[in-house]
């Protein structure tokens, strides 16, 4: 089984493990034949990587990869750039950052 980023999904690949959302509900069941459209859809729902069947195992350390805190901060800073001076938006920024970091662990 191999872990790949959703961007690398190709049509015909077979899903090796169930895909769950960050709070645990099952989004896709293992054994499903994947398509590139499904890959885009998973990305839309915030899924970054999946396991596929039929290839060599990925080393354990790759399984535990998570979003880098710096990358997330950079992304949110760009997104909030025009409103971050506002006190309320600052609070939303830090709560979203905290929430997303926790969920990616």
């Amino acid at each position, binding site marked *: 089984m191999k872990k790949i980023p959703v961007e690398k999904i190709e049509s015909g690949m077979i899903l090796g493990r169930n895909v769950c*959302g*960050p*709070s645990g*509900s099952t*989004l896709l069941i293992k054994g499903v034949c994947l398509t590139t459209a499904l890959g*885009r*859809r998973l990305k*839309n*729902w*915030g899924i970054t990587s999946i396991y596929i069947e039929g290839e060599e195992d990925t080393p354990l350390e790759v399984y535990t990869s998570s979003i880098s805190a710096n990358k997330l901060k950079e992304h*949110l800073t*760009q*997104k*909030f*750039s*025009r*409103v971050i001076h*506002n006190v*309320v*938006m600052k*609070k*939303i*920024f830090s*709560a*979203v950052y*905290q*929430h*997303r970091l*926790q*969920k990616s662990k």
Partner: protein
Amino acid sequence: MEINKNIQQSLLNISSLPTLPTVIESITRLLQNPKTSAEEIGKAITTDQALTAKVLKLVNSAFYGFPGRISTITHAIVILGFSTVKNIVLTASIFEAFKSSDNAVCGFDLEQFWTHSIACGAASHALARIMGNKEKEECFIGGLIHDIGKLILYKYYPEEFSSVLTYANTEDILFYEGEKKFLDITHEEIGSYIAQRWKLPSKLQSSVKNHHNPLPVYDNYINTGIVHCADIFVRALDYGNGGDKKIPLLSENVWTDLELENRSLVSIFDTIQDEVEKATEFIYLI
């Protein structure tokens, strides 16, 4: 670039604007009579086969709490109640009305648009639940259709839509700000016009019309405020994309009136994420 500044006028003359299935009107009429039975409503809905299939898929989704266990519309009404089923029928009808939006505007992904809309509906539902608001189903629909005006622009005015989209993304501003620069109308106004044509409740029309700037004087202010927050929160959580990559400013009066200051935003985001996940399968209905 030639931009049509007369959308307001020409919109009135488009005869092919999406319509809701006629069954919606008969259900609304039936529901006004307190003696109407679940069987009668079920019978009215099942006259429309395509709609029935969508409604059954929706009621059996994780979002409504009975995944895969409801086999007929009558059964759904008994379990979920008239009001919830009516809103589910409305949701299915909206998906049905827009099922063939087959334009292609470069840089705009329809699936991302619907992901954003469904997530906004689910987040509005979650916020209403957190706040003890009894109209959480209405809030869901408010969130689901808040950007429906963008779809009308996309479908009937693709060149204008494309110009606004390109401008918004090049200048790194909100789609809404691009509309104000180029068009004589915004997606809020177009959306509320469609909601009016569809004879949706005036409260929903108001939510669509004012979701960028809800003010206490407007009809349905609290629910509109919920949709306003939900839109901002799902943008921050990166669910889909409604046409731009920026976060709008959250209205200070909404922040105060929904008492968000006293709540844990992190736990609100946890609840929203849960609710959005349960609604992910809705995308298959479009």
